[in-house]
Structure formats: C-alpha cells, structure tokens
C-alpha cells in the first residue's frame, strides 16, 4: 500500500510539475539595423520576462541552456554568421529557436542592372541590391524588388576585376503571399579571354511541402574553383505554375530579392 502511495504521489507530482511548465516561452526579439553590414553588425536581444534567460550560439550549433547567456549586444563581423537564440526559464518550457543570418559586404560593386520588376515592388533606387539594407520580412518594404515572371536577369559589374568564388542572393520566402525561391539559379561570369559569359555555378530548388512562416533565405552559390572577372550575369527562373496545395495555385509564383553579394 505504501509503495502504491509513493508511486501515486510521484505520478501526480510529475503531472503537477508538467502542469507548472505547461506554458512555452515566446522567442526573444532581435534588434538590428540590417542583416547586411560593412564591417560589423551589432545585435541586441530583448526579452522582458521575469525569470527567463536568453541563450544563443553563433557557430551553427542549436542553442540550449548550456549555450552562452546573453548579457550585452553581440558584435558580428564574419562573412556569414547565423545567430540562433532561445529563451528559457525554470517555470516555462523553452522557446522555439529563432535564427537570423548576418551577411558581410562582399567585393565592391560598381553597378547592377536587373530585369524590370513588378511596378508595385520596384525597390529603393539603383543601389537596392547592394545597399546593405534589408532582411526585412515585410514584402512591402522598399528594400525588396519583386517579380512575377519566368526569367529574371541581373547583371552585376564589380568595381574592378577580382578573384570570384561565390555569389550570395538574399530571397524572401513567404508562401502565403506566393513568394518562393526560384526553381533554378544560374550564375555566369564574363571571361575576358574569350569575351563571353561562361558558366560559374548553378543551383536548383524544390518547394517545401509544408507552408512555413515568412523568412529571408540567403542563398550562397559557391563555384568549384576561383575565376577572375568584373562581370556576373545572374539568371533566376521562377515557378510558372504553382501546385494545387499552395495558396495562389496554378498562378505564377513571385520572386523577391533584396541584396546580392559577391565573394
């Protein structure tokens, strides 16, 4: 009888403990001026909830209560750094992980020309794609240029011929607003010897089968070897016919870009 009583107490205690922890913390608020930066980015993390702490990582590991505790704004100065954050406290379940990728400026860009975007999403002038502004989830932000067409061409001219290895393009993914990654990205470079554009790298993408919340998707395309060039031609191929399970089914998908970096 006594054993049964102890088991009963243990079980009910456990249930109460679970009950006590039945609420999950929300993710923290990340404050920064842009995910793109020239020398260094400063990130402030806010979470005004009594009894909760903020934990984060910058090395790609998933954050836990054993990760670094946030105490003061974080300085980021590497090329591509993903900040991952959770909140946790003894009387709550930990929050889901929130993450943002910060992107350092690449080789200096002289100018860029792109296919005419949709009239509603024209961006913020000729510097839009290399002004270090963006990473904003709101598709109406002027940091984005938006397209609803098959093929988009972007010609990037560097300030001088440089050794080039990678190209980064920041896309918006917002399924509910029919905004997707392209099906295919192709990057060609201008070969000064042959006087022709030649293939540098390409990558194709498949749709996720689950409709997720809007997010910025910085896509890094890295070539197998370095080349030297001062011009790159980027071609983006959108989704012509959205599948039936998506909002906007059978319509043309949108592509939104806010920044291009060349490394």
């Amino acid at each position, binding site marked *: 009888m006594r054993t049964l009583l102890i088991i009963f107490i243990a079980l009910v205690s456990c249930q109460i403990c679970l009950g006590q922890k039945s609420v999950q913390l929300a993710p923290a608020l990340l404050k920064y001026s842009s995910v793109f930066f020239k020398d260094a980015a400063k990130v402030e993390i806010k979470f005004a909830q009594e009894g909760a702490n903020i934990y984060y990582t910058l090395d790609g590991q998933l954050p836990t209560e054993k990760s670094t505790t946030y105490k003061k704004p974080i300085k980021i100065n590497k090329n591509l750094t993903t900040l991952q954050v959770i909140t946790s406290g003894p009387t709550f379940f930990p929050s889901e992980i929130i993450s943002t990728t910060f992107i350092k400026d690449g080789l200096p860009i002289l100018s860029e020309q792109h296919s005419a975007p949709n009239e509603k999403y024209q961006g913020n002038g000729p510097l839009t794609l290399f002004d270090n502004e963006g990473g904003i989830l709101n598709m109406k932000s002027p940091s984005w240029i938006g397209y609803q067409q098959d093929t988009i061409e972007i010609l990037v001219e560097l300030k001088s011929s440089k050794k080039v290895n990678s190209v980064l393009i920041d896309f918006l993914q917002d399924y509910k607003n029919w905004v997707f990654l392209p099906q295919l990205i192709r990057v060609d470079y201008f070969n000064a010897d042959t006087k022709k554009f030649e293939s540098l790298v390409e990558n194709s993408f498949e749709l996720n089968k689950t409709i997720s*919340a809007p997010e910025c998707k910085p896509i890094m395309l890295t070539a197998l070897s370095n080349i030297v060039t001062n011009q790159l031609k980027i071609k983006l191929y959108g989704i012509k016919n959205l599948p039936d399970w998506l909002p906007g089914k059978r319509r043309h998908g949108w592509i939104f870009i806010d920044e291009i970096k060349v490394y």
Partner: protein
Amino acid sequence: MQRKSFIRNSSLGAIGFLSQPSFPFPEDPLLGHNNKRYRLDTKWSKADVATNPVNDCHEMVQDSKGRIILLTNEVKNNVIIYDKAGKLLTTWGHEYPGAHGLTLFNENGTDVLFICDNSRHQVIKTTIDGTVLLVLDYPKETGQYTKASEYVPTETAIAPNGDIYVADGYGKDFIIQYDAKGRYINHFGGKGTEAKHLSNAHGICVDQRDPLHPYLIVTSRLQNAFKRFTLNGVYIDTIPLPGAWVCRPVIKGDYLYAAVLQTNTLQGKQSGFVTILDKKFTVVSNLGGSQPQYVDHKLDEMYQTAKYFQYPHDVCIDDEENLYVAQWNSGKVYPYKLSPVI
C-alpha cells in the same frame, strides 16, 4: 471508499508541500504588469464542443443583464450567450458565415447588437436574441464602392446619439458614418500615406471617458497604431503601439484594452497577447507580452513573452473587471477568462 478518499487528500497535501518550494509558479498563471495583473483560466467555457462548437471566436461583449455574448463564424451557433461562470445559457444565429464584429448598444434602455459580416459584406443590427432590425449594405452613397465585394466591414461603434460608424477594415479602410436609422452621413479614413489614412482599420470605438468630449478611436492594425478622430471624422492624432497588431480598442472604466493578434516580427507564429493602456494612452500592462518600456516618452517595440495565447482577436471586460479573450484561428478554442489580482 472513505479510506481511498483519505489517501487522496493526504497525498495532495504532501504534493503541495513538496512541490511548492521548487515550483513557485502557480497552477493558474499570473499575467500582466503593474496594477493590471490577472489569473488565467483557460477552461472558463463550459460549452460542449459536440453540440456547440466554435470556429474563430471573433468578438465578445457583455449585455445589461450581465451575460457574456460571443460571436463566432461557426454557423451552427453564431452567437453563444454565457453567464459569467462560463455556463452556456443560449445560442442563436446560423446566417452569419463571416461573423466578425460584435458591438452592443443600449438603445433607450434596450440592448441591441451590431454584427459585421465579412462574407455577406453587410452590417446587421439585431435584437439581443437575434431578430434582425436593420441591414446596412455596401456604402455606394460614399462614391467609393462599385460592388459589395469591395466592402468587408470588420467593426462598428455607436455614438451616444445613435450614429453608427462602420470600419471597412478588410475592404477599403474607410470609416462610414450613418445616423441611427442607417442613413449615410459621412465617410473618412481610407487607404493612403497621410496621417489621417488607415491601414487595416480593424476596429473602432467611441471614447466617452471624458463625457463632454467624446471622440473615435480607430485601429490601423498594419501601422501598429490607434488613430483618434472627432465624431465627424477629423483626424486628431496617432497612438503608436510598436510591433503590435492591435485589434479593436475596448474601453472600460479608465482603461483601454485590446487584443494583439500577433507581432510584426513573428507573423504567422501565434505571437499574440493582450495590451492595456491607461487614460493617457500609456501602456501599463501586457498579458503574455513584454513589460512596457518607454524611452524618452517613446514606447519600445512590444512582443509576446509566453505562449498563453495564440491569436487573440478581442477582449471583453465585465462588470466585475474580469477579462475575456476571444481568439482567431487558434484551434477552435473557446474564450479564456482572466480574473484581476489585486
């Protein structure tokens, strides 16, 4: 039988003793800040989901008999009437598939309701038990609309003289003013870039806290703000609520209460909470949200801190200062009740 009962009691006593020191968090959590703190009861509604389901719980009001009235877009029972203890008293309504806005007005001693229906593109005035008194179709008198589908009313507010203000929050964002009989008087707001314009004019109320100077408070949800207008539609000022997708303003006593559907930074992520502002429009408490902070008289961006709510869509404050929260797209949950902690 007696022995079992004794064991249960003693074991609960032991648990209380054992668990309290290490788990100070109470079973019914305490939410909020300053003098506006509440205990949350998620099981307030005693309705049976098999017979009286809800879909989106859009809005709630209390009538002069003290009953709590819920509007849902579930056509099995668009209107569910509860007592304050959560007992379902009665239901009515099967013809409001887009039931969204619910406003109660005491018309010469008689309660009447105004329902905004998104799908029907109409505002319907009814008696408290559902008899239709007046239907307002799309406001072509304004010269701004050519067909009903352009008009998606989300909320009404009734002035002391009976004038009806309709917020076309999912349509063209105009506020349309009618007299008590439903005759068009005026319209204002609408989309645009000036301060007087609105973006998702989701809610509206008449602020009569200063009885000599009543005015309108209108939600501009995508701008994360309330905007004040005179009763004839002249813009007064903006009350910024950074980060917060505020729904309609609800005034009770000296305070303004509003459901926050979600936050800017976590859209589509069940990031809602409830915000409470004092008479000077200072945020004093966020239920499930961040402690309000002002720097140089400017409100810091607000955000959810714990997932007590998913997408709160409206609040109702009863005559005993209890607060009820109706939620949109939140797993068809019934409303929650929060009791003030003094």
